[in-house]
């Protein structure tokens, strides 16, 4: 019997200094905060975080582990800008590669397809192509039209959340938007998926097969952990815990509150109140 489940306590052993880590979900929706907690527990430094950003990015800015953020935004949805990320960026503590959302998708897709780049119109003329970004344009070989050659964004590790999974690594998303999680998985050397609910393979089939959105060819570890997404939204199973999110945001202002929040976050369930 195939079994790729991994104990939560073993996740930190997979995280090393200098890794490029992609995190699935979008904004403050379906973020694998329990796996982010494992990254914080690992103490790994100088990380590059690639994300359609939410509190995952904010937490790793607050912990001082993120050195570089590749993103198109970092939002909490009901709070437009993640204050932990904003503080770190304004303090010059993190480098950012700020991309158009479609460019970020194109970079992950290129990596997932084992290509060096993907051609796209998105980003042309914008400051996403500013000097230092390393992103080049190319002429279309057929029409001569200028296009962005969005470089592949290969990941050492992808962290994702699934609503349900089986021991073999089949993962299910019951919500209306699977986001770009499969591209993160495809772009990564190693993919870890968290889930609250481990079920038999037969049970996954109760919903439409389109909900089984990532094939297990790209899933390396399944981690079963309570409260995997913390306070973030996980439709249709649960809405965002706005109170817990407000506590998170309020902790951004001072060094002491940030430290206290992180300590509580690491000690408790993902997204729990600081204690």
């Amino acid at each position, binding site marked *: 019997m195939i079994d790729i489940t991994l104990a939560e306590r073993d996740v930190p052993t997979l995280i090393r200094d200098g890794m490029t880590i992609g995190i699935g979900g*979008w904004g403050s929706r379906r973020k694998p905060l329990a796996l982010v907690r494992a990254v914080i527990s690992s103490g790994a430094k100088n990380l590059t975080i690639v994300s*359609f*950003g939410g509190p995952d990015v904010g937490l790793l800015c607050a912990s001082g582990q993120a050195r570089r953020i590749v*993103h*198109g*935004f*970092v*939002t909490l949805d009901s709070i*437009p*800008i993640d204050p932990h*990320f*904003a503080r770190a*960026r*304004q*303090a*010059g503590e993190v*480098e*950012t590669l*700020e*991309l*158009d*959302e*479609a*460019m970020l*998708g194109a970079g992950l897709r290129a990596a997932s397809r084992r290509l060096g780049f993907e051609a*796209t*119109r*998105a*980003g*042309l*003329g*914008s*400051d*996403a192509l*500013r000097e230092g970004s390393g992103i080049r344009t190319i002429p279309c070989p057929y029409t*001569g*039209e*200028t*296009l962005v050659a969005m470089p592949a964004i290969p990941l050492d590790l992808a962290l994702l959340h699934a609503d349900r999974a089986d021991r073999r690594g089949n993962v299910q998303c019951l*919500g*209306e*938007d*699977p*986001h*770009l999680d499969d591209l993160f998985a495809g772009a990564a050397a190693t993919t870890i998926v968290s889930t609250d609910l481990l079920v038999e393979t037969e049970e996954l089939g109760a919903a439409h097969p389109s909900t089984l959105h990532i094939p297990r060819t790209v899933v390396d570890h399944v981690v079963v952990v309570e409260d995997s997404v913390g306070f973030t939204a996980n439709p249709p199973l649960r809405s965002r815990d706005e109170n817990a999110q407000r506590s998170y945001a309020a902790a951004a202002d001072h060094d002491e509150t940030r430290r206290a929040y992180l300590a509580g976050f690491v000690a408790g369930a993902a997204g729990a109140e600081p204690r």
Partner: protein
Amino acid sequence: MSAAATRAEIAATACGDLFLGAGAILASPTGIIPSIGARLARLTHNPALLLSDGAATLYADTPPIGHPFEVREGSLPYRALFELIASGRRHVIMGAAQLDRHGNQNLSAIGPHDRPTRQLLGARAAAANTINHPTSYFVARHQPRVFVDRVDTVTGIGSDRARALGPAARFHDIRAIITDLAVLDLSGPGGTLALRTVHPGVEVAAVVEATGCALHVPAVTPETRAPDAHELTLIRERIDPDRHREREIPEP
């Protein structure tokens, strides 16, 4: 006869007029006034318009602002939205922290990019939008710090950046900038900011004063059209009975 249209109602109607003749494209309004406009357009001149809940679903019904959609007519998760953007079948009305006289937009950050003084929303899909399909802007408070000589970071591209790209920017199409005072566009010399209409009761001089960069003012500036009686009734009774619009643009 009902009371005269408010600034909020006039701005919403102007937003709705952006979709005249657009047919079955996706309207992506950001904010309350643009959302009222898109719903007004679908209930009047453009019943084919597509609306989403802003998340992953297209809806066939047109509920009041603040009330949920109910009749699903399509699935549009983010990855499908990117495909739709690339296909051009969309008109977005975005906000802007800063806009310059060529219509370059900044949603990213104020100050130096590496160490900004203030983090904003982020690049989002502004660059993809402005290079692929019609784009308009809504500015709830027309003021000098929004309309600036030079934006700190270009997220959505303006006419000068598009011109420099040549044929690659053939789908670039900034239609209008709708504010609480006026409707602007990029019909000024060299594709620069121009006053198209002023809202009833607003002086041209007041618009010029509230614009922090050069603004082309034509010899004659017409008034922005007011909603007709049917449109006013739709806005007041059907689309926004809870008067969310007055919070976004209060009466002066």
